[in-house]
């Protein structure tokens, strides 16, 4: 069934030609607009960063009593630190796209003449900021509650390792959150998909961090494990860039 209407409403003027689309905003302007919106929403709701930080500190307290020892060092310290940070990160990952899915943010973004990769970059950058805020609380708390050796000498190596780990967590977290958020069991599916993908980050991060957290503090982070973390970040960065556009489609 098909028909055309060109007789009715004789006074209706027709646009003489289809006007061209308004020029696209620059990629980084779009990234900035989305990030600004993300941070505003987080400031209003305080749903992610406070929860992540509180979770990390509480976990350190639980470890303090569960291990029944005043301090930890080396492999054990590195393992506790990385596992706690990654579990805390999952809280932020789970919330990353909830407002967009529940309040029409995806549709609003998809209607705009913008590069969709800008949302990926903005979400990864936002999650990185959340992780930075988490670590500003969690690392000092870990140092006070559990860590035997002083964290001072380990700081340069620790920061480099955390930075590489954070990039991986942010990229994988954004990719998985975008996949899970439109499913009915998103609260379950997010962690189930994220945790296995975080395992190489735990391994690499803990291997790099363990020598830094020994009393003797003999060496810096292993170059081999730092490179492994870097390559893992790169692989998932490329994967996320390739897949993200499809994940936004309904």
């Amino acid at each position: 069934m098909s028909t055309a209407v060109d007789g009715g409403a004789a006074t209706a003027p027709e646009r003489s030609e289809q006007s061209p689309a308004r020029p696209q905003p620059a990629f980084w302007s779009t990234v900035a607009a989305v990030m600004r919106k993300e941070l505003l929403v987080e400031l209003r709701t305080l749903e992610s960063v406070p929860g992540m930080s509180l979770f990390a500190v509480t976990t350190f307290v639980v470890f303090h009593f569960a291990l029944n020892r005043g301090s930890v060092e080396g492999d054990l310290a590195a393992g506790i630190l990385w596992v706690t940070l990654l579990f805390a990160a999952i809280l932020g990952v789970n919330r990353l796209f909830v407002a967009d899915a529940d309040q029409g943010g995806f549709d609003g973004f998809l209607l705009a003449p913008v590069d969709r990769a800008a949302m990926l970059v903005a979400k990864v950058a936002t999650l990185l900021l959340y992780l930075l805020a988490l670590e500003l609380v969690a690392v000092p708390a870990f140092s006070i509650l559990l860590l035997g050796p002083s964290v001072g000498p380990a700081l340069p190596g620790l920061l480099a390792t955390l930075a590489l780990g954070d990039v991986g967590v942010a990229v994988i977290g954004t990719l998985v959150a975008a996949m899970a958020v439109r499913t009915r069991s998103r609260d379950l599916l997010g962690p189930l998909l994220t945790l296995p993908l975080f395992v190489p980050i735990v391994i690499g991060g803990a291997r790099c961090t363990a020598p830094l957290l020994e009393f003797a503090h003999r060496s810096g982070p292993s170059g081999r494990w730092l490179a492994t973390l870097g390559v893992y970040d790169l692989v998932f960065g490329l994967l996320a860039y390739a897949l993200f556009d499809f994940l936004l489609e309904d």
Partner: protein
Amino acid sequence: MSAPALELSGLIRRYGEREALSGVGLSLPPGRTLVVFGPNGAGKTTLLRVLATLLRPHSGRVRVLGSDLPEDAWAVRGRVGLLAHEPLLYRELSGAENLRYHARLHRVSEARVTELLDAVALGGRADEPVRTLSRGMVQRVAVARAVLHDPELLLLDEPYANLDPAAIELVAPLIGVGGDGRRRTRVLCSHDPGRDLAEADLVLGLRGGRPELLADAASVTPAEIAELYR
């Protein structure tokens, strides 16, 4: 005569096995209004989402503003405004913050945000979170968002829902006339033939995703539309 703003033929869109739209075809010139009637679940919202490039058609031809969907959807984005059931506003942000966000995405000046908030009589409550506004006020902000970038094609899903008569008077000019003073090309979903038939140039009646009625508005009676709901 200029090319049609909308050209559909044999449009099919499925959700799983179920056909939400089945064989829809029509042509609408620029500056005209297509009003779509049909009971709940008839496919009206799905049709709007396909035209807005938010859903891919599974079969048939869909040409919007001279571009074929889904291949050339990028050429359509930014030229279409959608007023859906959901307001597409972040509840924790204020009306002004929401509109400024969309203005940045559409490369529209912030002066336009103020102008539109004043036009929907919400200038005084522009900085209050959307979650604190009444449903009618949220709908007014949503109208401002939909026309913020002065779209060539406006897709409206029950645009007057939740609005009192005074608010309808405020938003009607915004969704009726474009920034250049010309009548907008519109697709309007409605359950109210008493009001919306008068705005129509072309009427499409859907039932179960199938087009049961397609005719020039002048030849359609309210009784024919009421038949769609029986």
